[in-house]
C-alpha cells in the first residue's frame, strides 16, 4: 500500500510537470495552430539560462528567475517574428518542418555550449517545504513546483478570461478571419502568444531543472512527451493539458512500478494511438466535425 501511495504521489508530481510543460505548447497551438516540435528545446533554453545565471554568474535566485522569464519572453517573440511569420498561411508540413529544424538548431547550440552532461543547480529550496504523510515523502521541489504550477494556471486562467489581450488571443484561436475583421491585430496576437508560451516553457524548464538537473537530451525528450499529454487533454485546452499531464504521469509511473520499467517510456505513445483512434479531440478539445 505504501508503494502504491508513493507511486501515486510520484505520478502526480511528474504528471503536473508534464502538464506545465504542455501548457506553453497548447498556448501556441491554440492561437496560431502551429504544432511546435521545438518545445522541448524551449524548455531546455529556460533551464540553461537559469543555470548560467545562478551557478555561473551567482545572481540571486529570485532575480535570476525573473531575468530567465524575461529572456524567454523575448526569445519567443523573436522566434515568431523571424521564423514563423513568413509562414503564415503556408502548408502544414512546412510549418512542422520549420519547428523540427528549429529544434535541431537549438539543440545543437545548447549541446555546443553546455555539452551533453548533467548540470545541477545549487540547492536553494528550504527543507521545510517537504511533506511527510505517514510513509509517503514528498520532496520540497515537488511541493514548490506544484505551487508554481497552480499559481501560473490561475494567472493564465484570469489572463484569458478578463484581460483584453487574452480575449484577443481567444478570438484569434476561435476564428482568425472573424477576429481580423473585427480589428484584432492577428500578427501581434501570434507574436504575443509565442512570447508567453516561451515564458511558460522557460518556467517549466526551470522546474524540471530543479528536479532532475538539466541535461539537453532529457529535457528535449520531455518535449516529445508533450504530444501524448496534449492529445489526451485536447490540443486546444490549457486545463486539459494539466489533467492530461497528470493522467499520463500516473500511467507512466504505475507501469514503471508494477509492469516493467522499460515499458514506462513507450506507454504514453501507445495510449496516444488509442486516443487518436477512439476520441481524437481528446478529453477537453474542441470537436471540429470533419469526416475523412
Amino acid at each position, binding site marked *: 500500500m505504501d508503494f502504491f501511495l508513493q507511486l501515486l504521489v510520484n505520478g502526480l508530481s511528474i504528471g503536473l510537470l508534464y502538464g506545465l510543460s504542455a501548457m506553453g505548447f497548447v498556448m501556441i497551438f491554440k492561437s496560431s495552430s502551429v504544432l511546435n516540435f521545438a518545445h522541448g528545446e524551449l524548455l531546455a533554453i529556460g533551464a540553461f539560462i537559469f543555470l548560467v545565471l545562478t551557478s555561473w554568474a551567482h545572481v540571486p535566485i529570485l532575480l535570476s528567475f525573473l531575468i530567465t522569464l524575461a529572456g524567454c519572453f523575448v526569445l519567443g517573440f523573436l522566434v515568431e517574428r523571424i521564423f514563423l511569420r513568413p509562414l503564415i498561411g503556408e502548408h502544414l*508540413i512546412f510549418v512542422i518542418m520549420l519547428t523540427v529544424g528549429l529544434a535541431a538548431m537549438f539543440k545543437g547550440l545548447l*549541446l555546443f555550449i553546455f555539452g551533453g552532461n548533467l548540470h545541477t543547480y545549487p540547492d536553494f529550496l528550504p527543507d521545510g517545504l517537504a511533506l511527510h504523510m505517514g510513509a509517503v515523502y514528498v520532496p520540497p521541489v515537488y511541493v514548490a513546483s506544484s505551487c508554481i504550477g497552480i499559481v501560473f494556471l490561475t494567472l493564465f486562467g484570469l489572463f484569458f478570461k478578463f484581460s483584453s489581450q487574452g480575449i484577443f488571443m481567444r478570438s484569434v484561436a476561435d476564428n482568425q478571419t472573424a477576429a481580423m475583421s473585427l480589428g484584432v491585430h492577428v500578427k501581434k496576437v501570434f507574436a504575443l502568444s509565442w512570447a508567453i508560451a516561451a515564458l511558460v516553457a522557460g518556467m517549466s524548464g526551470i522546474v524540471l531543472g530543479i528536479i532532475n538537473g538539466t541535461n539537453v537530451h532529457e529535457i528535449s525528450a520531455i518535449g*516529445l512527451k508533450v504530444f501524448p499529454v496534449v492529445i489526451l487533454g485536447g490540443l486546444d485546452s490549457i486545463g486539459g493539458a494539466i489533467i492530461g499531464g497528470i493522467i499520463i504521469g500516473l500511467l507512466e509511473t504505475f507501469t514503471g512500478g508494477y509492469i516493467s520499467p522499460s515499458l514506462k517510456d513507450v506507454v504514453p505513445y501507445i495510449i496516444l494511438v488509442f486516443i487518436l*483512434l477512439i476520441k481524437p479531440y481528446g478529453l477537453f478539445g474542441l470537436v471540429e466535425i470533419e469526416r*475523412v
Partner: protein
Amino acid sequence: MRKLQMHPCGNYKEHYSRELAIFETDFGRLWMCIGLIALFFVLPFASGPYFIYVLNMTGIAAIAALGLNILIGFTGQISLGHGAFFGVGAYAGAILATRLGFPFWLAVPAAGFVTALVGMIFGIPSGRLKGLYLTIATLAGQFIIEYILVHWESLTQGTMGITLPAASIFGMEIASDRAFFYVIYICLAAITLITVNLMRTRFGRAFVAIRDNDRAAEGMGIPIFSYKLLSFAISSFYAGFAGAIWAFYSISITTEPFNLGMSVEYIAMVVIGGLGSIPGAIFGAVFITGLNEILRFVTDAFMNMGISTSFGLNLAALREFAFGLAIVLFILFEPKGLAEIWRIIRSNFRLWPFSY
C-alpha cells in the same frame, strides 16, 4: 522516323500523349542517357572506395526518400515514422536471411513486403485522422516500433544486433563497395522508373487528388481510405527495400540508427529536395547525405588538428545545428526545394540570353 524535338519554343501540346510524356524533348532523353552512362560506367571507376561508399549511402537514402515523397509529396500524409519503417525493413531482411536462409535477391523484396504490411497497420489511423493528428499518430508509431525492435529480443536479439551473411546474386558474391554500387543503383533506376510511371497511372492521380482536396476526391468516387492505405504500403515498401539493402551492405545492424532523428532526416530530404517531385527526392537524398559527410569531414579535421577533443565532441553538436539551419533556410527561402532551383537554372539556360 519522326522529327527529333530538341528545343521547345513554347507550350504547344497537340495530344494528351504529349502532356503525359516523361521527356518533354529528345534533348532531355539524350542527357538522361549520357547521365546513366556516366553513372554506371564512369563514376564507379573514377572514384575511390570512400566516395563509392558515400554514393551507395546516397542511393539507399534516395530509394527510401522516393517512398516518403509518394506519401508526403503526392498523397499529402505527413509521416514521422519513416526511419522506423526503414529499420523494420533492415530487421526483416536480416531475420529472413539468418533464420530462414533467404538469399539476398529474395530477402530484400520480401523485407519490403513485410514493411509494407507494418506500414499499413500504422496507416490505419489515417482512416479517421488527417493533418497534424495523423502526424502525431505516426510519431507514436515511430516510438512503438523502436520499442519493439529493442525489446522483442527473441526475434531481433535486442541491443546485440544481428550479423548478416554475405550477399550474393546467382552465385556471384557481392562484397565490394563497387559491386554494391551496381546493385543499389540498378535498383534505384528501376524504382525511379516505376515511381514515375506509377504517378502517371490512376493510382498516382488518385493520390494527388487526395492531397489536393480529399472531400472532392471522395466526391469523384475515389475510395480515400484504401488509397491512403495503399500509399502508406507503397511508401513503406520503399523504406523496407532500402532498409534491407542497407542491412546487407553494413553487414551487422543494431537498433540504434532507426530513431526519430532518422525520420526527421528523411522528411528533410523530401522537403529540401522538393515536395511532390521525383527528381526532388533524389536531390534531397544527395544533399542530406552530402551535408552529413561534409560535416563529419569538418568535425574530423578539427579533431585531428588537435584543438582538444572536447571541442571536437562539441562540433558534433554543430553538425546538428547546421542540419537544422539547412532545413530552416530552405523552408524560408525556397520552399519548393532543390527541384525548383534546378528548374530555374534549366530555364535560364534555355531562355538565354533573354532570361529574366
